[in-house]
């Protein structure tokens, strides 16, 4: 008996969807062991997490808050991954986007600037900051064939130290790892701002960032499906040599994709400082840019699916906050990623058990020996 792995010619859509579901269930199953090792009853813990993430009156708002940066950064990752450009530095691009937006809010625009203009300026700065940070590995890849996986990841650590320099140094509020708070005009509108009109919004911190992400997702979905650029990304992703043959300028597309990818991650950072923390501070992102990679991959690089997956992962983060020990969501994320990659393999290949001799042949053999 041998095990043989052979590729499937066609992978049906339902199978790849089923693979995802199976991967998530398997991840929860394996995660359960780790939870019980940590002294928790997995069923109780999961129910607690699920309830807090999705079922309580404030769950949608809390989950949206966590989902927003995942959505924007996840869309950014999607753009690059579509052409098989492995930008795994979304975290760094997010940080630089937050830095640029903070700089604009605190030091460039006067505090009395009208809110729409202030927020627009911060948004542009956030996008450009992330975009330029993404462009660095883009240029290196396009011009010198430097591996973008390594350069984009390494630049994340540069970004962390870069931000720390500012929040502990020139921008620091009293030497702590944070800046002073933005003027009110630099805050995203939140649900609780409308409590006078809708009393149920009391205490709800979901902000307009998710709507921006939703719009971006729709725009990207249309571009991917209908535009020349979307077609070119797909062509490059499938066969870069065929794309070159079709007259596509690979270098320019690599740089453009990294620019947009980084820009969206930068917007995620801007949305986080304008919508949640209202200042730049150390560790304001619990690795949103890294989780965004899992989000994009789980969503099969489909921008509309990114919205859904980002929401689910937001729920995972909210639910994880409600149980001890902390770090559970991170662990489950990791297991989900492993399971998803395994499920990918299983949907694209099939495993067959090969018996040394099939019955039919054995029968034939006896026949021949007898004759």
């Amino acid at each position, binding site marked *: 008996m041998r095990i043989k792995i052979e590729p499937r010619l066609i992978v049906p859509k339902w199978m790849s969807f089923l693979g995802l579901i199976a991967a998530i269930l398997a991840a929860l199953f394996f995660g359960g062991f780790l939870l019980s090792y940590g002294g928790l009853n997995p069923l109780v813990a999961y129910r607690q997490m699920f309830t807090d993430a999705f079922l309580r009156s404030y769950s949608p708002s809390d989950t949206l808050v966590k989902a927003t940066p995942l959505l924007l950064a996840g869309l950014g990752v999607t753009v690059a991954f579509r052409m098989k450009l492995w930008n795994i530095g979304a975290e760094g691009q997010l940080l630089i986007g937050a830095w640029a937006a903070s700089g604009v809010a605190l030091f460039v625009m006067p505090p009395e600037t009208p809110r729409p203009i202030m927020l627009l300026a911060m948004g542009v700065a956030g996008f450009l900051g992330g975009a330029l940070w993404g462009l660095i590995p883009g240029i290196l890849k396009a011009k010198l064939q430097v591996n973008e996986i390594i350069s984009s990841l390494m630049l994340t650590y540069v970004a962390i130290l870069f931000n720390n320099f500012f929040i502990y140094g020139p921008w620091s509020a009293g030497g702590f790892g944070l800046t002073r708070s933005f003027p009110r005009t630099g805050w995203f509108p939140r649900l609780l701002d409308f409590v006078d009109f809708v009393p149920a919004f009391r205490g709800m911190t979901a902000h307009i960032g998710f709507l921006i992400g939703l719009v971006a997702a729709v725009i990207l979905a249309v571009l991917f499906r209908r535009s020349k650029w979307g077609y070119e990304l797909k062509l490059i992703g499938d066969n870069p040599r065929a794309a070159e*043959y079709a007259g596509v300028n690979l270098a320019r597309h690599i740089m453009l994709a990294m620019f947009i990818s980084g820009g969206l991650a930068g917007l995620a950072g801007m949305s986080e400082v304008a919508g949640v923390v209202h200042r730049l501070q150390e560790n304001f992102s619990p690795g949103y840019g890294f989780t965004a990679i899992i989000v994009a991959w789980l969503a099969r690089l489909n921008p509309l699916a990114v919205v859904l997956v980002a929401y689910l992962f937001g729920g995972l983060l909210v639910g994880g906050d409600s149980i001890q020990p902390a770090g559970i969501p991170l662990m489950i994320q990791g297991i989900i990623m492993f399971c998803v990659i395994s499920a990918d393999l299983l949907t694209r290949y099939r495993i067959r058990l*090969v018996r040394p001799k099939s019955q039919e042949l054995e029968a*034939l053999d006896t026949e021949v020996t007898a004759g």
Partner: protein
Amino acid sequence: MTQLDTNQPYALVMRGIVKRFPGVLANDHVDLALYPGEVHALLGENGAGKSTLMNILSGLYRPDAGQIIINGEPVTFNSPRDAIRRGIGMVHQHFMLVPTLTVAENLILGQDDIGFILDYTALEAKVAELSQKFGLAVDPHAKIWQLSVGEQQRVEILKMLYHGAKILIMDEPTAVLTPQEVEELFKTLREMAAVGHTIIFISHKLDEVLEIADRVTVLRRGKVTAVVDTAHTTKAELARLMVGREVLFRVEKKPANPGNPILEIQNLNAKNDRGLPALRNLSLTVRSGEIVGVAGVAGNGQVELAEVITGLRPAESGKILVHGQDITNKPATAAIDRGVAHIPADRTGVGSAPNLYLDENLIMKSYRHPPISKGWAINLSEAFRQAVQLIKRFDVKTPDVKTPARLLSGGNLQKLILARELSREPEAIIAVYPSRGLDAGATEAVHRRLIDERDRGSAILLISEDLDELLSLADRIVVLYEGQIIGEVPPKDELVDEIGLMMAGTKIQAGD
């Protein structure tokens, strides 16, 4: 189905082999019987089931039904290793050699019983003995990358003999060889047959089959259509058995009526991927309404020439003009927009996007301009509509338009590429190995299309390593050797030897 006489002393019998793939019956009760010491040709179009049958014989696939009997003993193979142990060796079209290792080192790869310490002296003695015996001259110390294609093939054969192969499968062995190298190969094959080895010779080249084989098994659509002695058959009969209808060997064409120069190449120099000179001072003009054939052994600058013209590879110096306009070192879109079509050598690696649908593959050259483009967007319904038409017009066999290109057979993929390139009514066509690996039917279709384009007034540069193709299609033939054009001849059958010599680098004045 032919009946096998099991009393004959066959070296190998494959009986009632059935192999089914999703949607295809690749082998439908195929019988194959080989005598010891015979050269047996396996003839069939692409998709006829030759490769499947040979993959079963060499242990890569397991048959769904049927049996394999070697020297009277039934066997089952669970892996290529089992097949090798039973004395079956396959020389693939693409060599399975490690370029950075020496000949001797390559020979012992995959051997079971090598000890911890290698006995090179014994190995080399064995290699020398085998080379001597079968006229397979190679230096055991040479690294594979230093060898010519013909020499590499000899190493592959030696490897199989060294592993004890008694039954040797040669998969289209002549595709990459010069006429002279083919002669040497045939001498070796005859010598091996003379001492009792059995050779299975896979080919679609009928002349070669008639020259080298003793008997021929013809496959069509997974079934054996005939087993014939080459002594009692003709090329026309074989072709009919293979294709199921009469095939024209010479495409009928009117005399060329060359017009203005369309494509002018002046003193072109370019490098290959390894940074070595690939084209040296090459000058060539192709006029409207003529087909200029470029003959040469693969690797003498053919692919680089096509790439430089189409803007995929930079020129070091020199000029490329289309209709008098300089497109040297311009982006690939410059050539595309000036109507230069490119049928690339590598259909799957360059000419198509394997996972994209047929309509998406068909708009690769036209998506930038109306009617396929609509401002920033692509008119998807127009692309689909055109695809439906093109697939019909160019006879691409596919279940539907929304099929990934990788599921097309070689011939159909080439038709798809032709559909894309020729439907734009190109001014010039760069066709590189356009019929390589295609069966007779698909080859004929490709040739017909190219002649039609010529008659429409297109300037065609036909790069091929198939002399038959060049002789039947081209209006004049230039020979490329080490990046230079070393001669030009008219396409006359009696000049084959001269062309062959020039392909091997000998400068001669032929045909004048």
